[in-house]
């Protein structure tokens, strides 16, 4: 009778003085916490990985911008249709899209302003990472795309 009464009160004493209720509750909290930590960890690593890819793509885009700025202005603009937005298609820009490591650089848009002695070349650079073998894994969280506006003057410095 005394035993049943103890069962009814869900009071089960184990060795060491812990109750079963506390044990179950603690286990549940522990599992929940582990899952939450796993989720946070997964999200964090995803974000960090994407951030890393983005940073690399940004660096590549910026380096390409510097490369364009240092290149001979006349060679960049030779054959471009002035004063209109277009996809650059002269001898120089035929090298695009070009691949550096796992990233692809594209010049998706340009505008060559030729207004007498005022000359300017606008180029929109886009850098994205190339899909890996497992395309499913490359989509979504592993894909980055960085665009950069570049304006080049004839100034050499």
């Amino acid at each position, binding site marked *: 009778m005394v035993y049943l009464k103890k069962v009814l009160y869900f009071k089960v004493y184990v060795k060491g003085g812990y109750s079963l209720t506390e044990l179950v509750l603690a286990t549940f909290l522990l599992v929940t916490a582990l899952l939450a930590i796993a989720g946070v960890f997964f999200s*964090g690593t995803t974000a960090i990985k994407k951030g890393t890819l983005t940073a690399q793509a940004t660096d590549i885009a*910026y380096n390409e911008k510097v490369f364009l700025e240092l290149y001979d202005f006349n060679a960049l603009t030779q054959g471009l249709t002035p004063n209109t937005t277009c996809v650059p298609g002269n001898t120089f820009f035929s090298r695009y899209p070009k691949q550096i490591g796992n990233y692809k650089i594209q010049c998706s848009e340009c505008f060559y302003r030729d207004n007498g002695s005022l000359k300017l070349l606008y180029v929109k650079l886009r850098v994205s990472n190339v899909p890996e073998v497992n395309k499913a894994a490359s989509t979504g969280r592993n894909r980055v795309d960085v665009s950069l506006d570049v304006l080049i003057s004839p100034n050499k*410095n």
Partner: protein
Amino acid sequence: MRSPSKKKTKKGFALITALWIVVVMIILSTALIATSTRTLFVVGNYKIRKQVTALAECGINEALAHLIQDKTWAGTLPDNTTPDPLKNLPSNMEYKVSFDADTTGYYSVNNLNSSVPAKGCKGRTIPPYSANIICVASVAGVSRIVDVFIQPASDRDSLLLVQNQIDIKLPTDQGNLNLMSENSGLADLHSNMTGNAINVTANSINLKGQKISAVGNINLTSSNPDVQGTIQSLDSPITIPPMLDPEELDTRGNKPYILPRGTYTKINNTTYSFHDDYGVTPDRTITTGVLPGVTVKDGKLIFSENQIVNGELTINGELSFDEGAYLQLENDDKYYEWGGDETVALGSLVVNDGRISGNGSVVAERNVRFDVSSTINSADPREKINIFAGGTVTMVSNSDTMATFSGFIHAGKLVATEIKNASGYPKDLTIYGGVVVNQNTLEPLPLPPPEPEPVEEKPVMKSLKRAAVMAAVAMAVPEEGESEDISIEERSAEGGEKSAGGGERSASPPSTGVRSAESGNEEDDVDPYGRDGDEGGQPKTAPMPKLVPPEPVILAPPEPVITDGDVVMANIKNLTIVYDEDYLNLINSKQSYQNYNISSWTEYSK
């Protein structure tokens, strides 16, 4: 007495241990979360920061392009010349460059044309001949400022930049060629000519670390071969800057006064006489105030205001400039009206028995010949003379004083072969500053207009008219036996009336309506039939005149003159050329630059 000892137990140890573990985990977790958050924040901002920096650099580059086009540019960006994709940026992206100090906290300052410092954004000082460009850009709420200082870039420093040949012949027993630099610039004696570009004969050639270069060959003949500098043949050519217009030299904004062409001769320290061989301007005595902007002091004819002369100006004395005034000499294209010729109608300057001093400029369409004799130290920084001559600049000296010139010369040819002392022996010549010599094309004086046509009609005109009238009459000749309805006199009178009508002559037969309109009633003097006045009836049979016009007299247009683009220096004892970039600042500030050096580049956030 010992107190009773407490009983030792392990009860609660596990709980305490667990609590410590939990605390440590909490701390570690907190640190991990903080680190991750910070890392994510940095990584997340990296892309935007690069984008906003690139956008701000777009503004800087756009401003540079405008300054290449116009060194005085001080507009606002973006403007209507901005490439369309940048004009149509997404709403969360923008950039701005402004030179307006009133409307923005960050503004640019263009001080490229000024020789004095200027105040810039945030109280900073903008050095002379430089510009501070600030571009403020923002992307997705992240702002970035790119702040640069720019200065004009010169490909190379050149002391003596010459398009064609440099020929320097100094006495081989004592003549020394010295090249020096007053400041950090490299003195470079350079020729763009191929072939034998530079020929130097001297006792010694002292480059002192400076340089002689040429696109072609360099021939140095010296008893002392230790040149202590750089000799570079087959060098690349250097672009020769264009000659400046007087307006670009004007520091006052005043229109020049017209100075009479002729000869000004020093009489005493306060008086000059003026004489014009052609009598266009009466002779007069020149003292201070007689001519606007001209003063006479200490024996100098001083131009305190800008002056312009049509034709040649000769000064027998010292010409001086006051604080940046200029003297412009233009060809007198109407020389025939006062009977002049090329000797006095070309825009040239001759300064005898004196020198050019002060701080100012001579801009001559043709030649400048001046005395470089000096009794003062011409390296004095107050002496800044710029001489721009389309033709030849000739330096002479024939006194026992020093021969020096300090300033800048830009000419079609430079000659210094008469640098002598009073005894006629070669003496030293020193040039401080810089020299540019180019092969210029000079416009000739125009031909006088043709003589006005005499009142008498030209023979060819008469012949044409006579033939035309004869043809008209022949069409109206009546059949034999019929009488004429219109007499010759009436036809002539009719023709005269029609002539007076001008354009209505088109109603007449074509052959009669072409020329007679020009002569009007002059037809009355002509009897196309060659008959006497009283003879009526049948006209005489007159032979048809030949309608062959005489050969037109075409005067060949005068040919333009092309200068040699050479430098000839000879009969000088010691030739010293000192490169001083300070003298070139004015010139540099006026040129249209192809490039700017970015001397300072700063990026920061608001």
